[in-house]
């Protein structure tokens, strides 16, 4: 058991958890930040994607003890009013079906576009291939990423 101070969405949170607890479960079970989803638990589907110092990271395999001073950003903290260019593009293109994977898709896209603001479609495909959508919204995902890149 360890007491950790985590920097999440611009605030410091103190949690008292086992060292090996994945960041995902700290966010969900201990901090009530449930926008980050559990789906596979083994870094295969991307539903748990958050930003660690701005980089897309699978929180399901990130032990909380390894987070240290890194800045964690979750879907709840991506923007204050849900108006990050990626979120706006997602709304405009109307991407979601069931929606469960979409916070992870959005976090993946936001980190990708930060590092590569004007990507080719091929680069978009490569980046977004990390996230599974069981409903098959892939066409709209790539369309929305392309749109967000344009409006940024």
């Amino acid at each position: 058991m360890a007491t950790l101070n985590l920097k999440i969405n611009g605030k410091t949170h103190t949690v008292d958890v086992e060292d090996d607890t994945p960041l995902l479960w700290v966010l969900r079970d201990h901090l009530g930040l449930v926008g980050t989803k559990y789906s596979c638990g083994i870094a295969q589907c991307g539903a748990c994607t958050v930003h660690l110092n701005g980089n897309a990271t699978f929180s399901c395999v990130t032990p909380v003890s390894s987070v240290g001073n890194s800045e964690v950003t979750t879907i709840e903290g991506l923007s204050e009013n849900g108006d990050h260019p990626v979120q706006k593009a997602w709304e405009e293109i109307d991407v979601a079906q069931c929606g469960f994977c979409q916070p992870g898709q959005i976090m993946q896209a936001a980190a990708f576009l930060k590092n590569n603001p004007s990507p080719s479609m091929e680069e978009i495909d490569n980046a977004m291939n990390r996230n599974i959508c069981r409903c098959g919204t892939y066409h709209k995902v790539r369309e929305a990423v392309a749109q967000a890149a344009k409006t940024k």
Partner: protein
Amino acid sequence: MSTITREGRRDFLKIVGTTAGGLFIGFNWSSCDSPKVEVLSTEEVLAQVKNFNAYLSIAPSGDVVIYSPNPELGQNIKTSFPMVVAEELDADWSKVRVIQANLDTEKFDRQLTGGSGAMPHSWERLRKAGATAKYVLVAAAAQTWNVPAEEITVESGIISHKESGKSGHFGEFVEVASTMSAPEEVTLKDKKDFKIIGTPVKNVDAKEIYTGKPMYGLDFYREGMKHAMIQRAPFGMKIKSMDDGAARGVSGVTDVVTFGNSVAVVGTSTWPLLKAKKLLRIEYEADGNVESTADHDRIFKDLLENGKADVRRKDGNVDKAFKTAAKVVEAEYQCPFLAHSPMEPENFFAHVQGDRCELIGPTQTPDRARQTAAQILGIPPENITVEITRLGGGFGRRLRADYVEEAVEVSRAINGPVKIVWSREDELTGGAYRPAVRYKFSAALDNAGNMIGYKLKGVGMNAGNTTRENNFPSGAVENVLIESISYDSSITTNAWRAPITNFLAYAEQSFLDEVALAAGKDPVQLRLELYEKAKNNPVGELGYNVNRMIAVTKEVAEKSNWGKNPNVKQGLSVYFSHRSYVAQVADIEMDGGSPTLKRITAVTDCGMVVNPTGANHQVRGGIVDGMGHAMYTNLTFENGVPKQKNYDSYRLIRLKEVPEINTHFLDSGFDPTGLGEPALPPTGGAIANAIFAATGRRLRSQPFIEQKEFSDIKLEIKRT
């Protein structure tokens, strides 16, 4: 381990309607640390609404609250249902708020998601609900202004009387309208006057989804609630002995509970349970057939030859037709088991308190959840409430109530509130799978290449009827024999998106391609000739509308430039299921020496399209789903346990594996039918037929990538 303080709490509100219509219960999950603007304003509206019927309420502010009774799992019903109500009400869509209704069998019927049946079932009900409310609002305005109701017009939530120049919004007449009685009959709008239906309306939950608000069952937490994860027995086995000592020793685990052949670890958060579950020492022993995939392959072949079949359909004299045939075509097709694997794993909240029970979570069948709990607890169903959360996918998995049963068992055992959660491994190994099926097709052709005899025999695992005996080509062939055999497997099976047809369509449409080749006919031509026969001289009962089959087939040939470009190798598939007609053509081009799947063209006749955005979503999603499972996904068993336990081995289709998909809709003038399923069945056939056209390899089993015929085909997939 202790759960640290939350930043906020989720409040549950019970809102009582102010007029006749009974009790309205709404749940509100206000988020933890984000502004509550949207939620609060809906509450404010709800606090003052007048209920006009089960489906809608209107506040003095003019805001319209529409209740969506059916569970939303991505089929977009929470957007399309209210569109229908709002249309007949002539509401201003921007003033419409949509709330997921909880289970209420008094107010709603068929409150479930399955069989693509919600829209056809509710179309008229929803229209009447909107029209009735409009009627009383108009009557109230007529009374208030002392003018004839017939002279009043309504547009976008504004009621007007031209001659007197008076007008006002809905809210101004709510008080008077709520005292009026509803008419026996109402007039519905002419479809040509629709203003909302047929327009691309966006997902009503979009903002919440894209900002990560708690909406799904998995996101439900309540102060003091315990978490539980469950170890289930392999199929065909039962517990012989169990040692939970090590599991109990994990910090954060508060209890271990056994019921039936399941062992639940209970605790204060999820991570300790994932660890503790692995520390359970459970020995199992056989309690029925302990099956492996190799057994299934043997059983299928044996039953197809020697099993006693249930005759589903018999027309003419099949034996004679095959004896006199100039040519006989035969082929067998087989598919594997599949898990549903919704992205949100199974979960449910239960709180049993004496003779009452509260249930909250993702279910396609809320009433089944309630009945299941009532049966376990021996209490009346009316003592049980069911709140329906948004579902992170369903695909048929959440038609079952096995996980509800578990939540109820654990809550009863620990005497407190609990949320049970399945891990992905649980979902894949404890599934209720799409059953494996094997089909044998035979066609008898005369000298001219006409199909004079057709036989289909299916054998499935717990599949009941493995055929759709009145579907095409039945009705188009003089001599037909359709038979089905079901094997009782100890592996749990269940409906999976487009049950039976999710594989039968691929097998049949591939076989028809084989028949076309043997008959020396173009696949489009072969089908059109058969449709003509079914139209002009139908044989026996037809479960489909031939004219609609003809229309989608001709249209897809047109839209895909069928046969026009010799460099494009094409595969056709046309299927009727769940009341809708979908034709698809897959295009493979030789691109740098590799066969490249470039696009799929789909033509759908689902009657009137309620929401073009949603319809396009369902067709493309169905095609991606159909393609993914046909190409990549396999679930095999060894001694009652699936070998594929997570997404590292259970392969789902990814973004780079989808081609361009072009969707087209035919307006046949029929009322709308559902689209959650019908686009999926034809896809495997279209792709398999295109692969054959491009490479000469016939794929008779799924997944394609594991077939030896496919092993040296380097199929590329590209999007433009």
